[in-house]
């Protein structure tokens, strides 16, 4: 997998029409600030949520598998 090859291209929803991206009226600054604060508050709740142990286990397995592969390769050579 190449990261660049993984790019799906234009648009997440298939809507690539520039006409469909017309600008809407700007949101007043104080409303933007409020939305920004609430967004960061909600998102930080997601970031700080408990992380399942599965991910550490997965990374351990991936590291061990690659160490094993390298060990085998070194033994072969």
């Amino acid at each position, binding site marked *: *997998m*190449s*990261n660049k090859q*993984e*790019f*799906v*291209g*234009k*648009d*997440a*929803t298939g*809507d*690539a029409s*520039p006409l469909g*991206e*017309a*600008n*809407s*009226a*700007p*949101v*007043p600054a104080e*409303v*933007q600030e*409020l*939305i*920004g604060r*609430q*967004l*960061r*508050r*909600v*998102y930080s*709740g*997601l*970031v*700080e*949520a408990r*992380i*399942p142990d*599965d*991910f*550490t286990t*997965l*990374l351990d397995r*991936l*590291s061990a598998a*690659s*160490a094993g592969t*390298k060990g085998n390769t070194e033994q072969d050579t």
Partner: protein
Amino acid sequence: MTPSVERAFRADLEKCVPNLLAFARSLSGNPDRANDLVQETLIRAWINRDRFVEGTNLKAWLFTVLRNFYISELRKRKYEVADQDGVIAASIGAEGNQSAHMDLVDFAKAFQSLPLEQREALTLVGAEGFAYEEAALMCGCAVGTLKSRVNRARNRLAQLLGHDVNEPASV
């Protein structure tokens, strides 16, 4: 990669997991799906670790992998799992102030009702702090398109949350 570089890469991957999980949850609105997305992202990142250019933004690279995998899965499955159970709203911790807590719950519900491309644009720029240029690259769209999505997302949120979005007319 040398063993020491590989160890450092693994540690950096692990540091990114909380943000990857948050991004996956904000995209999918489904905790199980988010876990699967992060697992797949970590596997892909590990397999392709030699392609990662040291000194570049690992988090942006991982977010792109996750996002593209999610989009390709959506296209295959032709459906999107919505936040039917209010997962994001439910993740909001207790606030001292009940009114402030309800404001955040309302915000989370409004956010989850946004179209996917607006949610991801607003998350990347407004919550993760990526530059518009970085976020546009990650979403595979023009910078102007991304700015427009962020603006429309803010507009929609403002409307849903009952804010007056009409600026005073200039004379």
